């Protein structure tokens, strides 16, 4: 399981970073989303990955997983939503103002077949 977890995180991170480095705002937002999943899961995994031991205190249960990373990740997910929303707002505004959805605020200069 640990291998699946670690490798998936690596792949999602790589895809997120690649999209993050694209020139169009919407691709950047997509990349940020992927990167957020990876980061949240990464933080979550600092409490190790254990099945069947939710941190809800109950009579007669001795094993619980680490609740602290979960608390951190819970707010991180919500903040991540806020960030995505802000970026989307920025992207919409920038496109509305400049007519281009390139992150640099204008279509890149140079030969037309070279729009990055």
């Amino acid at each position, binding site marked *: 399981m640990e291998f699946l977890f670690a490798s998936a995180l690596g792949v999602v991170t790589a895809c997120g970073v690649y999209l993050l480095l694209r020139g169009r705002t919407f691709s950047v937002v997509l990349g940020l989303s992927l990167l957020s999943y990876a980061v949240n899961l990464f933080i979550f995994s600092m409490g190790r990955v254990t099945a069947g031991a939710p941190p809800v205190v109950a009579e007669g249960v001795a094993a619980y997983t680490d609740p602290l990373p979960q608390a951190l990740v819970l707010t991180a997910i919500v903040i991540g939503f806020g960030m995505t929303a802000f970026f989307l707002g920025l*992207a919409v505004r920038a496109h509305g103002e400049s007519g281009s959805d390139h992150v640099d605020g204008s279509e890149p200069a140079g030969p037309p077949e070279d729009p990055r």
Partner: protein
Amino acid sequence: MDTAPQAPQKNNAMTLPIIILLPLLAGTLLAPLAARFGRNSAAWTVAAITAASLGLVLSEASGVIAGQALITSWEWLPAIGLNLSFRLDGLGLMFALLILGIGLLIILYARYYLSPEDSVGKFYALLMLFMAAMLGIVLSENLLLLVIFWELTSISSFLLIGYWSHSAEARRGARMALAVTGGGGLAMFAGFLLIGSIAGSFELSAVLAARDTIHDHPLYVLALGLVLLGVFTKSAQFPFHFWLPEAMAAPTPVSAYLHSATMVKAGVFLLARMYPVLGGSIEFEVVVTSVGLITMVFAAYTAVFKHDLKGLLAYSTISHLGLITFLLGLDSPLSAVAAVFHIINHATFKASLFMAAGIIDHECGTRDMRRLAGLWKYMPHTATLAMVAAAAMAGVPLFNGFLSKEMFFAEALELHDLGLLGQIAPVAVTLGGVFSVAYSLRFIHDVFFNGEPRGLDRKPHEPPRYMKVPVEILVVICVAVGMLPGLTVAPLLAVAARDVFGAELPAYDIAIWHGLTMPLLMSVIAIVGGSVMYWLLQHQYRLHMSTPARWTAPRLFHRGYDGAVRLAGQFTGLLINGSLQRYLALLVATVALLGLSAFLQHGYSAGDLAPTAPEPLAVVVWLVALAAAFATVALHRRRFAAVVLVGVVGLAACLTFAYFSAPDLALTQLSVEVVTTALMLVALSLLPQEGPAKSLPTHQTRDALLAIGAGAGVAGLTWAVLTRPHESISWYFLGESIPGGGGSNVVNVILVDFRGFDTFGEIIVLGIAAVGVLLLMDGLRLPPAAGAGRGNSLLLSVAARALLPFALLVSVFIFLRGHNLPGGGFIAGLVTAVALVIQCMADGMDATRRRIGIGGAGLIGAGILIAGLTGAASWLFGAPFLTSAHGYPELPLIGKLPLASAVAFDLGVYLTVVGATLVILTRIGGVRSTTAAGGQV
């Protein structure tokens, strides 16, 4: 480090700080207020404040003159040796009187000088700030405190010189003054740090007592050099003199103040102040006297050829500062007397000359001596005053300048132990005297006689009566001191000079007539020689035609300055070329390299824990997640598909949370996923649906390498962590959850109780993000999309309306159980948000917003307010912010409630999340909905 200030005497504790605080606080704050009632009230206000400070200084004067230094001290940052220590001794007293006395006259003068367009409030406030900084320098007992005030003079003089900020010349002059004096100040600071570490304290008394230790220390020469850099830059000594003439772009009252009694005198003050500590060595004597001598002769010569009245006075100031520096460099008690005496004299005659120059400029519209002439006919009163002051400047008998200049000549004859310098000095000072008579004569003859004015655009006349009063007062002082030195300045001079020399002075006599002596002969040579020189220049060499070669120092400065700016610009341009894409790539690369260097430094190894066996279902989820992630990258230009694919990865994350014992996270992730996907689709309707063609291959390769590097790093790190045993501080939270937080869902208890403050911050961040979206969308209106106005699905609309109450019920349920079972404010808020999203999809943004009837922004505010008030309520019980109370019988009638106060906090979280989601969705969705049924999702 010994930080205990050693005080010879401590009483009248508050007087000294109040002297500084009056202008610093009252002056700077009241001046702009008073200026609203006209310039008179502003002038009277700051004059009253200055007079109050002056009164306080005078009230302490008798004790100081009797030989008792007043020292008071409060600890400020004792760990670094910085104390609020103040000292009023003879030297400080003399300077404080000059600063406040001449300051008072400048205030009166500026009242008439400034034109109605100038902001009087700003001027007086800056003047007060500068005055306070100067007082701080001369009254500081602590060297670090002195540095603070020193830098404050640099900054406030920068603002004063650049007062007419619309003029490029003023801005350039101000910048140069700040760069030179501020830079020198830094050197001085370093020197003080050395001195303080050698002496073991920054208190002046302790430093004075440690003179021998400092002199014997190997770092003495370095410390001396650094302090002298500060002195020479501030006092405009060669080769740092060039900033002072450039600073003449300041309004004339500023020039009169800065260059007579204050700014440039700060340098010689410091030299005098540190003389008992640093002086007396051969290095000190040679460096200080030769710099002073060169400055004095060179600047006096330059002054003769200046056509601008203020330019002439500026170089004359530099020359006189050189004279004072020269005297302070000598190791003799009488040179200390002469230096202090000349400081006073120069302040009086130079302030009055600057004021006279300002009057001439004010009444004639020019300061160019090639155009000015014959003003004696038009303004005889001003002319008389200026002539007396100029005579004092030239060192003519019966005026104060003569007395100190003769002492200066006498001292220059006594440099027997300085070898060659001792033989050059008498000749050089006489030459300097000749030049100084020549430029004084030029000031008088060129301006007030020498024919008729040429090409003035107005007929000159006397200035307003009270504009001349400050000049008259100063000129009277010049004459009174010149004729009756014993009755006027002698006592003050004695205590100030004793503080400079650091020991009792031998008996001396200041008198006009000492008999036929060598200094008298030098004075005669200077006066005759200067007159001849001026006559020759005017009649033989056509002085007015001369265009003096622009001295290279300012040009070098500007070249260096521009070069530095250009270099910084090039460096910035190299990294910051305006492309966000590039910045991101640089950031990712930097982080990847940092991670890599950690791996390389410490080596990489997996842990020893045996991994658990993969479940078949997990492999399926893994495959789906990988496929979706790769597909997102491959299809990211087809944006609609990409949104769906990203959602698939999100669902895989959600399943992962659910499987690995994190039900709260799974619920959160699921609801966020729904809201985010809806939001992305809304935004996508406002952006191009398809991305443009491919990136450059080189970019793709670069980004792919970066991505693979980052991914490999994360995977490796995760693997290394997951295969190592787990230690955590969380077991405390698990144990305390029920007894301390009153809830069994530990994640929720951490959020609303143990780490409630974090959560409070996070909902505020969420609120800020929502407000940010609100502002971003404000004023943005896009034309309705093609196909907008299609009817909404009736079925969906009806279903959504039916769903809303149920969804709200579910969220209430999730909210209430949250403290003990998976759920809570965040998740309940998101569930509500999902219901609202469905409403929006069915009915459109505007309709939904109308139906809900309450603005999202209001909900955010209410949520943060409730959370904050819940936290603040614990103050009522004497507990820290956000201390939770649970199980307490809060309401006497109802009895013990099984509620935790944290539930109220969670309610705040809930409201904020709902409000933020609502604001974000309706605002972004509302951009295109100016027409009827827009907001297609």
